[in-house]
C-alpha cells in the first residue's frame, strides 16, 4: 500500500482509539485502545500486516526517539520534585528493580508449574533461545 495511505490507516485507527478513550468510563489511554483495535483489525483480517508494514517499521524502529520531548519535559515538572529529589529518586530506582524482578520471577514460576502440569511440554525451555 502507498505510504500516504499507510499513514492514513494508522492515524485513522489512532483517531478512533482517542475517541473511544474520551468516552471510556475508566482511564484507558487512546494509544492502548488503538493498539487493541489494530490487533483486532489484523486478527479478523480486515487489515493485512503488509498494508501498514513500512509505516509500522518506521514507528517501531524509532520508538525511543518519540519519547525525547517527554523526557525533556521533566524540566517543567522539576519544581514539583526538587525538595524531595533524593528520596523520590531512590523510590523510582528501587521500585523499578523490584517490579522487574517480581514480574520475571512470577512468569518463570508459572511457566515452570504449567510445564510440570502439562507433562513437561509447555515451557520446558524449548522456546527459550531464539
Amino acid at each position, binding site marked *: 500500500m502507498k505510504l500516504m495511505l499507510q499513514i492514513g490507516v494508522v492515524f485513522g485507527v489512532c483517531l478512533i482509539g482517542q475517541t473511544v478513550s474520551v468516552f471510556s468510563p475508566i482511564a484507558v489511554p487512546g494509544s492502548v485502545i488503538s493498539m487493541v483495535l489494530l490487533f483486532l483489525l489484523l486478527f479478523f483480517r480486515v487489515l493485512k500486516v503488509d498494508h501498514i508494514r513500512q509505516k509500522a517499521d518506521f514507528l517501531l524502529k524509532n520508538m525511543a526517539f*518519540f519519547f525525547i520531548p517527554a523526557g525533556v519535559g521533566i524540566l517543567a515538572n522539576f519544581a514539583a520534585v526538587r525538595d524531595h529529589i533524593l528520596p523520590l529518586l531512590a523510590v523510582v530506582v528501587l521500585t523499578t528493580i523490584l517490579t522487574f*524482578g517480581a514480574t520475571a520471577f512470577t*512468569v518463570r514460576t*508459572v511457566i515452570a508449574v504449567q510445564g510440570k502440569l502439562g507433562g513437561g511440554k509447555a515451557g520446558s525451555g524449548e522456546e527459550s533461545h531464539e
Partner: protein
Amino acid sequence: MNEVFSSPFFGITLSILAYELGILIERKTKLAFANPLLIAIILCVAVIELAHIPLESYNVGGNLISVFLGPATAVIAISIYSQFSKLKKYFLPIFLGTLVGSLVSVGSAYLLCRVFGLDDVLTRSMMVKSVSTPFAVAISKSIGGLPAVSVAAVVLTGILGAVFAPLLIRLFGIKNPIEAGVAIGTSSHAVGTSKAIVIGETEGAMSGIALALAGILTVIITLFVKV
C-alpha cells in the same frame, strides 16, 4: 532570536541531532548506559538550559514529535499479532506476571515512600510510576496525587527501564524472551518497550502486552487503595 527557537524546526532538529549523536555514542562506546534516548534528553536539556531557551519554544517542535507516540504504541499490535501463538500458549504466566508486578510496583512505592518519610500526596503520586503517562496522570488525579510528580516519576522510570533492561535481564538470570518482555513492559511501560523492541521481536510484543495489561490492572488496583 526567540522567533527562531520557537519555530517547530528548532525542537525537531535539535531532537534529531541529539538522538543521532546518542546512537553514534552508543555504537562507539557500547556502554549499557550510553542509551540514545538518555543521551538525547541530556543533550537537549543542556542546550535549552545553557542557551536560556524557554521550554515552551522547544515544545513547539517537541509536541509534533510527541504526536507520534500514539501511533508508535498502536503499531506494537503488529508484533503482538505475529507472536499471537505465544501469547495464547503463555497467557496465564503473562497475565499473572503483570498482575504480581503491578501489585509489587504500587505496594513497594507505598512502603518506600513511607520509609523515606514522604507525605501522603507524594506517596499517592509515586504509586502510579510504572504505568505509561496517560494512565498515570488519570490515576494520580483520581487518587489525589500530583500529576506533575507522577509524570516526572513515570518518565524517569521508563528511561531507567530502557537503559538498564539488558543489565536487569542478566542480573535476574533471565533466559526466556517472554519473561524479559513481560518484566520490561510491567516495570517500565512504553519507554522500556522501545528498548524491548530493539532486544527482540518476542520481547517487544510481550512488553507491549504487559504495558497495556499493567496499566489497566493498576487502574483497578488503585481503586482499592486508601492513602
